[in-house]
């Protein structure tokens, strides 16, 4: 029995240490599903090779910006860009915006820094996945909605694992509690929907979401 126990423990340790990368099915399926989604909807991406950021948008108003080279984008490697006015109308005090937020003219940015990256990326999905490469915990899978997501400092970008079975194929998510703290009435931000979600520990938290169903 001792031998059995020792063998299993060794096997276990070896398997876990050697196979960590292969075990990360969330990352491999997440990358694959984003690639499929972008391949099915090429119009989501704005093609401009001179732009240091790759841009994704479903409505031409709210964008996900992903730096082509995290090493050259300072502390704004991935951003959500959206019109500022609805937030101002809801009471947002732009003078109080902390790190991770930026207001620039008519635009409101939610930013995140993910280190210096591993070099320039030409593919949107590859560039986005620099973030979980930096910190694996930034990549999430939400079972109830069947969504993968990449977390930003005060928000998230999510996409459907299987867009054929989902009515929310891409979703922009903002931290509502933070915005409330900045003076905004989260329930009344035009174009955004206030939703209460449950975290892993069963606690509730509020988010503002903008979801798009890309099905024709």
């Amino acid at each position: 029995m001792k031998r059995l126990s020792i063998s299993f423990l060794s096997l276990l340790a070896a398997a876990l240490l050697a196979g960590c990368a292969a075990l990360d099915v969330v990352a491999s399926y997440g990358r694959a599903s984003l690639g499929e989604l972008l391949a099915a909807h090429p119009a989501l991406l704005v093609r401009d090779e001179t732009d240091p950021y790759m841009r994704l948008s479903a409505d031409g108003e709210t964008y996900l910006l992903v730096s082509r080279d995290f090493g050259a984008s300072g502390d704004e490697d991935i951003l959500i860009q959206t019109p500022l006015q609805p937030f101002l109308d809801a009471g947002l005090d732009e003078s109080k915006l902390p790190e991770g937020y930026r207001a620039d003219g008519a635009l409101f940015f939610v930013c995140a820094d993910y280190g210096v990256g591993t070099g320039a990326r030409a593919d949107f999905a590859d560039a986005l996945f620099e973030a979980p490469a930096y910190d694996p915990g930034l990549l999430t899978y939400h079972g109830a909605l069947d969504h993968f997501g990449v977390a930003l400092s005060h928000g998230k970008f999510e996409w459907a694992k299987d867009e054929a079975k989902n009515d929310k194929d891409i979703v922009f998510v903002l931290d509502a509690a933070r915005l409330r703290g900045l003076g905004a009435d989260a329930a009344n931000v035009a174009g955004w929907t206030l939703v209460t979600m449950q975290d892993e520990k069963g606690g509730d938290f509020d988010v503002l979401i903008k979801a798009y169903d890309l099905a024709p």
Partner: protein
Amino acid sequence: MKETSYSVTGMTCSACAAHVQRAAAAVPGVESAEVNLAAEKLAVRFDERLVGFDALQRAVEDAGYGLVAPMEGKRAELGIEGMTCASCQSAVERALKKLEGVKDVSVNLATNRASFAYDPAKVKLSEIREAVVKAGYTPLELKGEDARDAEREKREAALRAMRGKLVAAVVFAAPILYIAMAHMFPVLGLPLPGFIDPHRYPLAFALLQLLLTAPVLVAGGRFFRVGFRTLLKGAPNMDTLVAIGTGSAFLYGVYATARIALGDFGFAQHLYFESAAVVVTLVMLGKYLEAGSKNKTSEAIKKLMNLRPKTATIIKDGVELEVALDEVAVGDVALVRPGSSIPVDGVVAEGASSVDESMLTGESLPVEKQPGSAVTGGSINGEGLLRVMVTEIGEDTALSKIIRLVEEAQGKKAPIAKLADVISGYFVPAVLGVAFLSAAAWAVAGRDFDFVLNIFVTVLVIACPCALGLATPTAIMVGTGKGAELGVLIKGGEALETTHRVDAVVLDKTGTVTQGKPELTDVRVYRGADEAQTLALCASAERGSEHPIARAVVEAANGRSLPLVQPESFRAAAGRGIDAKVGGRRVLAGNFKLMEENGIDVSASGEDAKTLSGAGKTLMYVAVDGALAALLAAADAVKPTSKHAVQKLREMGLEVYMLTGDNAATAKAVADSVGISNVLCEVLPDGKAAEIERLQKRGRRVAMVGDGINDAPALVQADVGMAIGTGTDVAVESADVVLMRGDLAAVYMAVALSRATIRNIRQNLFWAFLYNVVGIPFAAGLFYAFGGPLLTPVFAGAAMALSSVSVVTNALRLRRFRLKD
């Protein structure tokens, strides 16, 4: 017909016991077969001409279990000095193998030991040692073991192996349980390492649990091997339930892991590995605790066996020799030093001492011994040095008989146990049916596969019938063992069960209520007869009689140094007296009936008879040559404990009767002195059984307590026959209960113990049934359908282990049985 018992291996529950019993009983030539699950024994009665051990073994093995061949003779290990090479080893082996009665010889050069089996009836250990010496080597210390030792060793080795596997299972199951709890109950806030976060790394989460579960299932592999084997033989048992339940959970977990690997991350929420691992571990824990408790229940036998010393000092040609106990022979003189254990049964030849017989009889006061006193092997010598002439050795000693009796008693089933057997036989298939039906019902009701699997596994796991099978035998083992400690030997479960229902106790007078050693107190002579001459005549006539009154007369005559002669003829008339010819004269000595039948006028003794019998004395009329010559009176003192014992019996709600051949006046006087109001007097020896039957016809459940040969029919007729242990072998053989103590306190102890044991059995059955009766509908989701809670396989496993443990623990409480005085 041969009646014997064999050890059975592989049984885990009462369903197994029922299968083994059926398999053995079905063998042609077998008259009866009974399995005791707790003792792991098959008691079988069969015609040796038609069937032997091999056929029985085949039948039991075909049923999926094992039958252990009886160990022939004994095994021993002898140290040997002087062996230096392989040819020395061969020489010793050859020397031992040449001896008749020695076999399975194995000599180990490295350890300098020879181990072998031998038949003590064919070869002595001294002869074995001599053979080694003749071969040119020196025999050293000997280590012997008999079948009981070998069995005990095997049981302890099995227990150690179980413990090792259990520890391994716990080591792997504990982390799985932690992971499952952390995942299922996030409100507990138990931290999980990031690399197995089920949301982020679902595959690592699943694989880790799979890898931790596999060794647990290997450790508990027995459930799967036995469970599926018995299922394939069409005789599923408790292991089948565990195997199917946990096997299903594990296989589903493997399937779920595969689906996670294929991208269905939702399966991380429904793995069931913890159900498989924790349930198997809990079942193993329950089985381990059961096995440990079973060892404890046979502690009584262990204690009795430990009373036997390994060696004895015998005196041969004036020299003291220390020899192995097996070397002692009948007729040897053993030297017993103060404070040491008396090695074998014998008679004191020289010396005086007080001997502590409490381990055997339960009697706490030491008993004085002098030359001529019988001593029992296993009792402890007091302060005097004794030389004891050996009268019984080996299996013929009282201690060996007691051990055998207790072992047989523990193997015999009580009627109440047979009910549990019948239920168990149908239980497992019924549970399988309920599990499938419940799962199907919920599936039809629209529940998802997860829920349905949960129901299926939980029903299988919680429905373990092992507690039911253990409820009775464990209590009986502890109860009979406790009885043995207290000097009450109950010959089986049936006797135990009947004793508790007794509502009337019939006590034989002489030797039971009284000391059984009457003394001659009065001699009245008539018609000018000479007192000494008449007494001498009567004593001469009575020399051939075993009756206690006769012995009192002879002792009195010897005490007066009267010359006694051999009678020319002697005839005993049962229940009346004797008719003999002494010195040409016809002597009649006996009771009033004898005189009446022979036309002897006893009116001259009328007043004396009334006075003496009114004083509780037993009368003996003596007629010489057809005329009344004397009236003798003997007083048999009542035992000091009798009155208190009768009072206790009445307090227990028992009707107490006294049965005697004495006349009414004598009988009443004795009965009054001990508080007995129901007297059955002037009963002839062959009328005792009829008196018992008369009481039984009035609806009484009768216990008869006696000690003499003539009590045997009454002991057999009674619902419970209790023989006073100091009595004759015939009485002891005929009785259901043997009271090693010579006093009546043992009677109410026997009844109290039996009531306590039956109460314990009922408690055990209640708990066993409760777990199953409540657990199964709970597990099937019946309460859940009405808004109640749902049971999970893990909790079902815990409940199942708890049920076995609680039954065995409750049975062990009997070890604390004490009589409240």
